[in-house]
C-alpha cells in the first residue's frame, strides 16, 4: 500500500508542476488503453524487470516513438498500479 501511496503522492506533485519537466528523480508516464492518464514515477522503476516488461509491451505497440512525447504504457490503469505497487 505504501507504494500506491507513493504513486498518489507523485500525482500530487504533478498537480503542482506543469507538464514541462518532472521533479528531479521522476519521469512522466502516460497510462491507459484509450484514455491516457499522466503519472510521475521514480527513475528507479526503470531498472525493475516488471516495469521493463510494461515498456516492452509499449515497444510492441508504438516502437520507440511515443505518441504523447512522454513514455506511453498502453495497459489498463489497474494493471499498472498492480505492477508498480509491488516495486521497491
Amino acid at each position, binding site marked *: 500500500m505504501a507504494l500506491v501511496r507513493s504513486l498518489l503522492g507523485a500525482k500530487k506533485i504533478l498537480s503542482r508542476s506543469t*507538464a*514541462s*519537466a*518532472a521533479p*528531479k*528523480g*521522476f*519521469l*512522466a508516464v502516460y497510462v491507459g488503453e484509450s484514455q491516457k492518464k499522466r503519472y510521475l514515477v521514480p*527513475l528507479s522503476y*526503470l*531498472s525493475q524487470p516488471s516495469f*521493463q516488461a510494461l*515498456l516492452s509491451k*509499449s*515497444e510492441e*505497440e*508504438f*516502437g*520507440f*516513438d*511515443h*505518441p504523447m*512525447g*512522454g*513514455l506511453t504504457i498502453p495497459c489498463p490503469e489497474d494493471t499498472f498500479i498492480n505492477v508498480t505497487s509491488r516495486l521497491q
Partner: protein
Amino acid sequence: MVKPCWRIGAGMERSKINPTKVDGLTWYKDLGLHTFGEFSMAMIQANSVMEDQCQIESGPLTFNNPTVQGTFVGVYDGHGGPEASRFIADNIFPKLKKFASEGREISEQVISKAFAETDKDFLKTVTKQWPTNPQMASVGSCCLAGVICNGLVYIANTGDSRAVLGRSERGGVRAVQLSVEHNANLESARQELWSLHPNDPTILVMKHRLWRVKGVIQVTRSIGDAYLKRAEFNREPLLPKFRLPEHFTKPILSADPSVTITRLSPQDEFIILASDGLWEHLSNQEAVDIVHNSPRQGIARRLLKAALKEAAKKREMRYSDLTEIHPGVRRHFHDDITVIVVYLNPHPVKTNSWASPLSIRGGYPMHSTS
C-alpha cells in the same frame, strides 16, 4: 587531373588536439586534425550493445597515387545487432582505396563499388555463419560516407543517416543537406519502392503509425539485412518476426548508395555527419547554428548534449536524470547517436604540407550489459 587544392590551416595549435576518450556511455574525440582542417567526434550508446560505429581516415586515398590526398568520414548505424556496422567499419575504407587505386582517383563509381563489395562480402559472412548463427541474416546497417578530396565533397548514403553542410551567408550560416535518405517515411523512398515492386501490394505497410518495408523495417536501403535481399534466408531457423509470408525473387532492399558531389567554396565552413539518433531531436538548421556559434573544441559533444536535452524534454524529465539511465532501457528515451563535425579550411595548395595520416575508429568496444 587530380590535384588536391586545400591544405591544413596555418598556426594550428597541437595542444588543442585531444586523445579519444570514454566517459560512461559517451565516446568522444573533442578535436583532431584531418587533411583539410579540424574535426570533432562524439557517440553515445542507448542500446544494450552499441550498434553505431564511425571512423575518420585522413591521408592518401589510393595505394599508388600519393597526390590523391583527402579525408574519409564514415557513420554506420547498425540495427538488429552490431555485426554489420562493425563489418563496414573494418572493410569499407580499404575497399575504397583498392577501387580508387585502379583508376588512380576518387570518383562516384569508386565509392559505389566500395559499398557494393562491402555488402556482398557481408552477405558471404552471413551465408558462412547460417548453420551456427542464423540471426546474422537479420542484422543490417545504414552507411553514410563522406570523401573530401580535390576541392569536392562526395556524400554517399545508404539508409537514413544524414550529412549537412554549414554555408556562411549574410552574417549567419545556412544548412544545406548533402545526403539523400532512404526511409519509408519519406515520400521519395516510398515512390521508389512502389515503382520497383509494382506487383507487391504489401511492399510497404503502415505499422506503429510508421511506414515499414514489408511491415518490418523503416530503411529502404541498407548494408546487410540478408533476409530481405535473398530468399534463401527467408526460412527457419530465422526468427518468425523476420520471416516473410510469401516467397520473393527480386531483392527487397538494395545497398546502392545515393551519391551527391558538391564543389566546395570558401563559404563552406563545416559538414555535420550524424546517425538519425541526432536528427530526430535536432533540425538541420539548429545543428548548424550550434556549430557556427560555439567553439570548435568539443563541438560534437555539444551537439550530442543538445540532442539529449531535447530527448529529455520530450520525455518530460530532467536532462541530468536522463544521463543516469542504463543502456538497453535507455533506448526508450533515445537511439544510439553518432556525430562527426568536419571543418573545412579553404586555403591554396602548398606542397608537402599535409597533416600526418590519421585513422580513428569510434564505437567499439563500448559498454555491454550482457
